């Protein structure tokens, strides 16, 4: 028999970026808000404090701040006829847990998607014709436009404190910024982060080729900053311990640095850690939810927490898992294409080329998560899909993020993996290479999806979620296109050697090496109830007092890192709740 706690106005599941944003915005309305966080509480000091956080083994290799598969994981298979097996230790992607979520240990690359990305299917059909969309590709429009979201991107960037250089201010192209970005209503809150030697060489080479290099938009502060909540960032010191680590320097935008101390001052806000939500409870009529049942680890008991409004703000994979476990929305069936929950899971297509220079010293330990110079000349809005034979795009970047020697010891092709030659090559080459990377889109497909696993269960006895995913020809073509572009630039820089790593024809998804924690889709937003889980306000189509935040709403993956987009979506949804929903709770569409 579960304990029942007194009712709250709002229950927030997960206290990462979107949970913190929604808690703050609704606490400002005077509502009683309770956030339930599955992991531990975390604060800059002591959890990320210098020098303890500068520990590659503990955080970078053993994943101290990440979700522990023992507590929560999923199973993975390549195709519909395969048996999925558990993702037993972390590799390909690293979901976070604890207060701050992945927002505490990301790199801080903060982008806005391009206009066509929000209406990708319509854009492709209108521009190139529906027949270029391959069989089995299930891309959709988002149901919301860039123009609608723009003020909320602006709001998120001011809260997060982003460093960068505008390239398109209200339609006017600005020298030095990204000329291919969607129009912005204001300049970035801070000047761009300075960049390292590798990025400088790349920038010059790109410019010489007539391309348009610009500073990567960065959630690593370039100077001291105070955000609209009075929260503060300190200047980034390029410590080289960014992704996988909490920021020791108050420099990387995170819920801790940008929201939480201000939120914690509000008497109508409270949060509980080590409280994993097991189920969102549906009302008898199925049109609303009544609250959540969670496991209170400290009390070692299940608790029913009633609430008027439930905000699902966990990591994208957990959002989908919880919807499936709660029986909210019709699960997707790849055989018929019917149903929505779990549909359109997508990942990120990345690749890179490393350049070795005998006579250059890069000091790779001088780095930060969103250091660098990018080009968007091969972005989604710039590519002729019909001509190139794929749908998608990529931004291309150089900018070293770290020189942590266990993880980052790239040695020239042909170097043995151990022995005297390996050791001596490490001494010789550690500082003498740089990389140019492609960060590209990944389309959604009929047989790439999420459902419940028939065999494996978690520590609460619930079925694990099952991921069915593999690389598809369209996206491999895209990354091979980028490989050719990057190698052209790389060769123009006259390195002594290069080595490329891109998915190629026949590449299968490998869960072992780290690739990206940009797992999207599964609880997608859209214009129609039949083909999406959420309406354009991230409100659940079936239960109007349930809103689902995060990248699980993306109908296919954008070519950019997902955080900027989900921050903007959270503020957009919060505004709809504040301005419209609270006064008259109902389906907003």
């Amino acid at each position, binding site marked *: 028999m579960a304990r029942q706690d007194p009712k709250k106005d709002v229950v927030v599941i997960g206290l990462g970026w979107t949970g913190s944003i929604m808690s703050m915005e609704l606490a400002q309305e005077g509502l009683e808000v309770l956030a339930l966080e599955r992991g531990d509480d975390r604060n800059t000091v002591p959890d990320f404090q210098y020098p303890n956080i500068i520990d590659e083994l503990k955080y970078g290799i053993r994943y101290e701040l990440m979700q522990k598969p023992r507590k929560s994981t999923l199973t993975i298979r390549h195709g519909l006829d395969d048996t999925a*097996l558990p993702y*037993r230790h972390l590799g390909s992607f690293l979901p976070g847990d604890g207060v701050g979520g992945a927002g505490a240990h990301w790199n801080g690359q903060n982008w806005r998607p391009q206009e066509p990305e929000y209406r990708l299917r319509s854009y492709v059909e209108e521009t190139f014709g529906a027949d270029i969309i391959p069989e089995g590709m299930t891309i959709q429009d988002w149901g919301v436009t860039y123009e609608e979201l723009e003020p909320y991107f602006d709001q998120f960037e001011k809260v997060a404190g982003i460093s960068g250089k505008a390239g398109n201010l209200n339609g006017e192209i600005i020298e030095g910024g990204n000329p291919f970005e969607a129009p912005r209503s204001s300049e970035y809150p801070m000047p761009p982060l300075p960049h390292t030697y590798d990025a*400088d060489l790349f920038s010059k080479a790109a410019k010489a080729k007539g391309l348009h290099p610009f500073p990567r938009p960065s959630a690593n502060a370039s100077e001291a900053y105070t955000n609209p909540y009075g929260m503060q960032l300190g200047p*980034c*010191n390029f410590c080289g311990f960014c992704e996988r680590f909490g920021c*020791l320097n108050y420099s990387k935008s995170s819920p801790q640095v940008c929201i939480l101390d201000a939120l914690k001052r509000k008497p109508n806000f409270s949060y509980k850690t080590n409280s994993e939500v097991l189920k969102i409870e549906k009302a008898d009529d199925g049109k609303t939810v009544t609250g959540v049942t969670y496991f209170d680890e400290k009390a070692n008991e299940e608790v029913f927490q009633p609430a008027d409004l439930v905000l699902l703000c966990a990591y994208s994979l957990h959002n989908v898992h919880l919807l499936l476990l709660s029986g909210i929305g019709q699960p997707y069936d790849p055989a018929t294409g019917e149903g929505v929950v779990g549909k359109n899971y997508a990942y990120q297509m990345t690749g890179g080329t490393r350049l070795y220079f005998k006579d250059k*010293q890069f000091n790779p330990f001088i780095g930060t998560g969103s250091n660098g110079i990018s080009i968007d000349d091969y972005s989604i809005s710039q590519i002729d899909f019909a001509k190139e034979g794929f749908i998608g795009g990529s931004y291309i970047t150089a900018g070293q993020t770290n020189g942590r020697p266990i993880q980052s010891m790239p040695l020239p092709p042909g170097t043995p993996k151990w*022995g005297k030659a390996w*050791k001596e090559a490490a001494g010789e080459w*550690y500082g003498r290479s740089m990389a140019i990377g492609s960060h590209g889109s990944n389309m959604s497909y009929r047989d790439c999806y999420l459902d419940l696993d028939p065999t494996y269960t978690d520590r609460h006895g619930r079925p694990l979620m099952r991921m069915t995913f593999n690389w598809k020809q369209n996206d491999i073509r895209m990354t091979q296109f980028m490989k050719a572009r990057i190698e052209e630039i790389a060769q123009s820089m006259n390195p002594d050697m290069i080595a490329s790593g891109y998915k190629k024809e026949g590449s299968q998804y490998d869960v072992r090496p780290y690739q990206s924690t940009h797992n999207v889709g599964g609880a997608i937003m859209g214009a129609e109830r039949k083909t999406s889980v959420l309406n354009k306000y991230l409100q659940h189509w079936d239960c109007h007092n349930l809103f689902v935040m995060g990248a699980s709403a993306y109908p296919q993956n954008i070519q950019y890192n997902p955080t900027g987009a989900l921050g903007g979506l959270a503020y957009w949804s919060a505004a709809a709740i504040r301005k419209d929903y609270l006064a008259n709770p109902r389906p907003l569409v």
Partner: protein
Amino acid sequence: MVDLPGRPSRRSFLKATVASAAVTSIPIGMPHAKAAELPSLDAYKPVYFDAAEWSFILAACARLIPSDGEGPGAIETRVPVFIDLQLAGDFGKAADWYMEGPHTPDANPLLGFQSPLTPAEIYRKAIPVFQDWCKTTHGDAFEKLDPETQDAALTSLEKGEVKLAPELRDFFSFLLQNTKEGYFADPMYGGNHGMQAWVHVGFPGARGSYTEWVHNYNAEYPLGPVSISGERA
């Protein structure tokens, strides 16, 4: 310094209440700028490994990162100690990993680790199998072979030519990965003694402060490393 008689010193109040807690929770030692003198590897008493395993680990590490040539080897940097401590701890126990059955250890390797055994168990079960293989193939236990033969044996292990049960197939990759971890991790984990591996490649360790170097392009960085405990080189 004298406080005014009776003047409320909230600070001194706090001193009193936290002093006892702080004394027990903060190691108020005298951090040393130089690496501590430690007993030699021969005198080290392994926490996890038995004597036979330890002989193998010492010999294998000595080939994976040998002492000859430029830069320190695994032995001088005490990598075997690191591996021993890791296997005795959470890593060895797979404390964070999902270890529920059913297990399919011979699954497609792209689907990742699927063994029912923990890393510590894999070392324990795989070492004797490899030693038997060395005896059959090369005529003696691994540590008794000459260096060239040892390298050949490790290469066979790496290439999968040594028949290991599927649940042991990750043995070599663990051994190599753990060796490199011990070489480059902070010295507080037992390896990278004296931060020699950091000095060798030019990694400044736990400094985390390079603002003034961002624009110093293509220049040699002059400072040696510092460790988490404050050891300097």
